[in-house]
């Protein structure tokens, strides 16, 4: 941090405890933030270009490789888009198995973020190792909870990381009821852990910070949307997924390889747990709602630091729903449904742990992909993260360097950013005038 007469600059050259590679640059002059840049320097990976010309059946497996933490989200959004195009109706039994697979991902991803990455921020310790010294039992139990999620994911998806069992139209194979029922005990124990976690994190000290967000999430008529739905926002937007690209505008910024997104005419928005919670609270499972009320977390909940509580509530929801689905699971007659390929454009979205994940595919008559478009949640949140930091910059800049750095990282981690997923474009060689 360099100090001039009225100007201070904070530069965090490598963000710790976020997935991927990024950096942050803030400049304040006379107490006013002049420049806030979340820099993503992870190289672009060109997934959309990679898909062009390949068979549409490759899309779920190739896009799953975008993220090692939330591959199921990519598989589901890809399948939704292609099934939308081909007019495939997924039978209820297959849909429920997909829900179960997706809940497994929420359980492991949220547990990882809450306990290993985010909680240490609130306790003023450097990392989970320090935290475990005083919270050994809870960390131990959280690892078991994450493992239960991984086991469920491996059973349905074929393996824990980058599962291989999802295909357009359903699954390649489905588990036997007895195999799924073996997981009831670890998931039930996991539910106890999730309740303890929610009550624990709800007592953390939360900075007083409540920006006016526009929340964007999917909404489903009968469930807390995860697998599919239509796009809603706290400003009254209600659109089918096929019109998502009318809602948001994307633009490239020179300081980041990820694209920025805004709501046309209004600015940044927030997608992810806090958005889902505020927009769809009444559809959370009974236990999740009960704990939410008990701990004083009900909509409107505007404080992004409290997203850690919401993640715990979503883990409770996912576990409660999973146990119910396992209880009534009957294998589908066939693991997948047959379909006819047709040319055209398909749209799909689902709720990744980090927020709304949109896919669009244009497919030719031969079934190959002509064009692909993927909008991941961290890219959508990136401008919102910068706006949060801009609002907080005047007070952050007063702190000593180590505390300022730590606080900014904490703000960024509120979003559980998965920077490797959000990486998109080559960094252009454009010189920013104020740099």
């Amino acid at each position, binding site marked *: 941090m360099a100090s001039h007469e009225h100007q201070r600059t904070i530069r965090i050259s490598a963000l710790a405890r976020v997935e991927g590679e990024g950096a942050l640059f803030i400049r304040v002059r006379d107490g006013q933030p002049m420049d806030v840049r979340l820099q993503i320097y992870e*190289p672009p990976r060109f997934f959309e270009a990679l898909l062009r010309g390949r068979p549409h059946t490759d899309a779920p497996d190739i896009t799953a490789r975008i993220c090692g933490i939330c591959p199921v989200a990519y598989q589901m959004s890809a399948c939704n888009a292609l099934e939308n195009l081909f007019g495939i109706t997924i039978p209820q039994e297959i849909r429920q198995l997909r829900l179960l697979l997706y809940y497994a991902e929420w359980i492991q991803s949220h547990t990882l973020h809450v306990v290993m990455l985010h909680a240490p921020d609130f306790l003023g310790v450097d990392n*989970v190792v320090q935290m475990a010294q005083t919270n050994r039992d809870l*960390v131990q139990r959280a690892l078991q909870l994450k493992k239960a999620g991984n086991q469920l994911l491996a059973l349905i998806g074929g393996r824990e990381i980058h599962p291989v069992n999802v295909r357009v139209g359903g699954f390649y194979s489905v588990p036997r009821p007895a195999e799924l029922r073996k997981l009831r005990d670890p998931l039930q124990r996991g539910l106890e852990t999730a309740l303890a976690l929610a009550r624990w994190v709800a007592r953390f000290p939360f900075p007083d910070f409540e920006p006016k967000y526009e929340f964007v999430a999917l909404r489903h008529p009968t469930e807390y949307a995860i697998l599919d739905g239509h796009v809603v926002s706290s400003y009254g937007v209600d659109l089918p997924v096929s019109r998502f690209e009318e809602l948001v505008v994307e633009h490239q910024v020179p300081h980041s390889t990820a694209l920025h997104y805004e709501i046309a005419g209004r600015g940044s928005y927030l997608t992810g747990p806090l958005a889902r919670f505020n927009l769809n609270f009444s559809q959370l499972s009974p236990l999740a709602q009960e704990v939410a009320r008990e701990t004083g977390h009900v909509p409107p909940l505007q404080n992004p630091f409290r997203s850690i509580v919401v993640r715990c509530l979503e883990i409770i929801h996912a576990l409660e729903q999973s146990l119910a689905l396992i209880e009534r699971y009957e294998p589908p007659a066939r693991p997948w449904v047959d379909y006819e390929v047709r040319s055209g454009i398909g749209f799909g979205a689902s709720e990744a742990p980090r927020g709304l994940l949109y896919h669009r595919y244009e497919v030719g008559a031969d079934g190959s992909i002509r064009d692909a478009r993927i909008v991941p949640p961290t890219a959508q949140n990136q401008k919102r993260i910068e706006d949060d930091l801009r609002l907080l910059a005047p007070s952050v800049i007063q702190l000593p360097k180590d505390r300022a750095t730590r606080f900014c990282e904490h703000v960024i981690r509120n979003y559980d950013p998965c920077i490797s997923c959000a990486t998109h474009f080559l960094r252009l060689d454009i010189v920013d005038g104020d740099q």
Partner: protein
Amino acid sequence: MLVIGLGNPLRGDDGVGIWIAEQIAAADWPDVMVLAIESGEPTQLIEAWAGAKRVYVVDALVAPLPPGRVLRFDLLRNPVPAHLATFSTHGLGLSEAVQLARILGALPSKLTLYGIVGQQFAYGVSLTPEVATAAQYVVARLRRLLRHAATPGQHRSPQ
């Protein structure tokens, strides 16, 4: 015996741990489990070595030493020195996994790291010749260790 190869095969010498794991898995040694782990996320490592007795981790090192130099650490006795950081594209890694496992009482009875000093970590490059030679040496070394070992186990393919 469990061999865990760590690293990212898309980033040059960082892939040396994965390369070694794949060689051993392909050779199908008896009583050896092999895991190739591309993320250094500590819970995954702790789960991987849960219940194992003898665990060998192979990973690339960033160190001010000639490329291909192999360093051996008894991780139960000595932490990896800070100036010899294992190369990880994620914020958490092997060192944190060992510390966390120690607190949680989840360490194997023997945990050895073979760290290979790398030179190039750019995207899309292959192993540098010195590192490739060192990798072959580490495979041979582990093979010798296995001949002396009598610990039963089961074989598992790399992920």
